[in-house]
């Protein structure tokens, strides 16, 4: 198997060139909410007749999130399971409808588009899933898995499918002669490439990757991550990269958004986040990532677990686990606001007279 190797010329060009153009965002999320409601069942409705006073259970999977993505940018979404990062990814990809708020593509509201325009926009935002075996139909040949969408959407004619699919397969480093095979005849890394090829076949501009390398071995993960970066250069792609793996996110993202219980708690350039996190939760996450260079270290742990999203704590969701929490944190939700150059953080510590202890030299530890 061959992978398109990085061309040193384009590499240095990408490095020397200016960063993504923030003035022309390709994607704007404006106060997105996504709620999942479990309505009462029969027994509970009957109980209510007798005055039990039960109410629908609502999970705020995404709770008022705003995010702007520039063209050509890679934005990493990180957080623990249940923080809403995958739900947000799905809202961006148009798989889930937001309960409130708007998604704008090139400044135009996606939900207001109709007909051909809407279909075209939906095609430009594609999603790549974690488990390729669960997202590839085991009874379809690879040529049909990759070629079905472009035929249906009139990008190519049915007679052109062989040539077109071969070309897309070559792009992701798959051997086109294997196109008549079924997904189970491929290895894990190759299946991941099939998933990528299927997304690329409709000429997307934005790829939403949901834990796309989480199931792969490190050496295969490296190949797939390199492929993502090569494709970004070749095809001028924008990525929203959802992952719990901070090492991966640090490597490929331009900016990182850290989520906790449905909210973005910190959003900044990757270097800024990893060199000096502002939010105590970010700091805790970073402290706990096992690293190669930290041999035989004493593992420390943040106390407690992520609370139930059915009944999140009031004020700042993180306050029960935060060693710096004070009264205001328990009452008032901190706004996500600018606390430094291009850095947004939602933490009341930044408003205190002493300032945020994490931003000073010798920042104290947040883990015990």
């Amino acid at each position, binding site marked *: 198997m061959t992978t398109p190797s990085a061309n040193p010329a384009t590499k240095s060009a990408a490095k020397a060139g200016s960063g993504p153009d923030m003035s022309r965002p390709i994607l704007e999320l404006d106060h997105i909410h996504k709620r999942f409601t479990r309505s009462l069942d029969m027994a509970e409705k009957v109980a209510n007749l007798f005055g039990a006073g039960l109410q629908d259970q609502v999970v705020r999977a995404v709770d008022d999130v705003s995010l702007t993505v520039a063209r050509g940018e890679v934005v990493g979404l990180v957080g*623990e399971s249940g923080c809403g990062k995958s739900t947000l990814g799905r809202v961006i990809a148009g798989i889930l409808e937001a309960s409130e708020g708007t998604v704008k593509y090139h400044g135009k509201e996606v939900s207001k588009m109709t007909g051909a325009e809407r279909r075209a926009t939906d095609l430009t935002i594609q999603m790549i899933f974690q488990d390729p075996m669960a997202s590839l139909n085991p009874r379809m040949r690879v040529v049909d898995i990759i070629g079905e969408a472009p035929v249906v959407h009139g990008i190519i004619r049915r007679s052109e499918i062989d040539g077109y699919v071969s070309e897309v397969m070559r792009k992701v480093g798959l051997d086109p002669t294997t196109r008549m095979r079924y997904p189970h005849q491929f290895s894990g890394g190759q299946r991941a490439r099939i998933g990528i090829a299927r997304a690329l076949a409709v000429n997307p501009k934005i790829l939403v990757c949901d834990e796309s390398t989480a199931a792969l071995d490190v050496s295969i993960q*490296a190949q797939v991550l390199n492929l993502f970066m090569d494709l970004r250069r070749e095809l001028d792609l924008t990525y929203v990269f959802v992952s719990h793996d901070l090492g991966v996110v640090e*490597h490929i993202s331009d900016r990182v958004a850290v989520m906790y219980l449905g909210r973005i708690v910190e959003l900044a350039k*990757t270097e800024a986040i990893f060199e000096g996190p502002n939010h105590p939760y970010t700091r*805790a996450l970073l402290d706990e990532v096992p690293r190669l260079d930290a041999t*035989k270290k004493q593992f*420390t*742990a*943040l106390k407690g677990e992520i609370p139930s999203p059915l009944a999140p704590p009031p004020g700042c969701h993180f306050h029960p686990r935060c060693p710096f929490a004070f009264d205001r944190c328990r009452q008032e939700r901190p706004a996500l606001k600018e606390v430094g150059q291009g850095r947004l953080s939602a933490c009341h510590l930044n408003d205190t007279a002493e300032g945020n202890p994490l931003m000073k030299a010798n920042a104290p530890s947040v883990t015990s």
Partner: protein
Amino acid sequence: MSKAVLDVKDLSVSFRTREGLVTAVNSISFSVGAGEVLGLVGESGSGKSVTGLAVLGLIDPPGEIDPRSSIKINERELIGLPEEKLRRVRGKDVAMIFQDPMTTLNPVLRIDTQMIEAIRAHEKISEKAARERARQALEKVGIPSADERLKAYPGQFSGGMRQRVAIATALLNRPTVLVADEPTTALDVTIQAQILSEVQQLCSETGTALVWITHDLSVVAGLADRVAVMYAGRIVEEGPVSAVLEAPIHPYAAGLIGSVPSRNKRGVPLAQIRGMTPSLTNLPPGCPFAPRCDYATDICRSTMPEPTPYEGGRAARCHHPLSAPTPAAA
């Protein structure tokens, strides 16, 4: 290193399949001392999990442990023990934690039933005393209000808590050796850190020898004393963690370490190992890594390199060692 409590010599495990005999583990040897942590690292299909299962005698047909293999716990040979005797060893002298705690836990039984059963299977003590020990075990792994939680069912715990219950159960009889097969892979980093810190503490307290099986080098870096890197059923390199991570001898170990994202500069393509792991049914002659190796020569393609000891308690199987440290005097 203190005296080895787990001593594995020439362990081979093979499976009869329709495609022929697959040797998943091919004559590997390692030993772990009391209180020591050995990280067993490899990619899918390298044989690391089969090794762990073999130590507990949990290889079922069509799998077969080569009768010439030797697995000794505290000098006692386990290979060839009848099933009846093995049952007494398992859970008492050697215990295992799995990736999915539900492999250990029965979903329809309360935690206390399961834990008390595990204690009383090996020891004649009263139910009351067993319950007290189970309670202490839960407290030790950081489960709050252990008394109440004992009465819960596995389904009432979160993923991280469930894994703690599985760890507490494994440690109930103070095993000499604990085999952990990717127990934190499915967990979030914060929960992983909690569990790693608890396991670290427990092992140093009780002197349990720990074999930590994982594909995640960074976890091994923080946790283990020694690391063994497996590839296609063989240990290709072994040594103290810091030495191996700083200057690997085997090109595969080097490739594996190099492909970890945090080892690479941001925005620069990751170092990658070309090709993919070979199928165990169709291994190339000679070194199995040769087709993917940048340093391979004719000898690599024809002859399997023998394990060579190096200074500093290291060993590797390679004809062309990188960063060549001095070979240990024979």
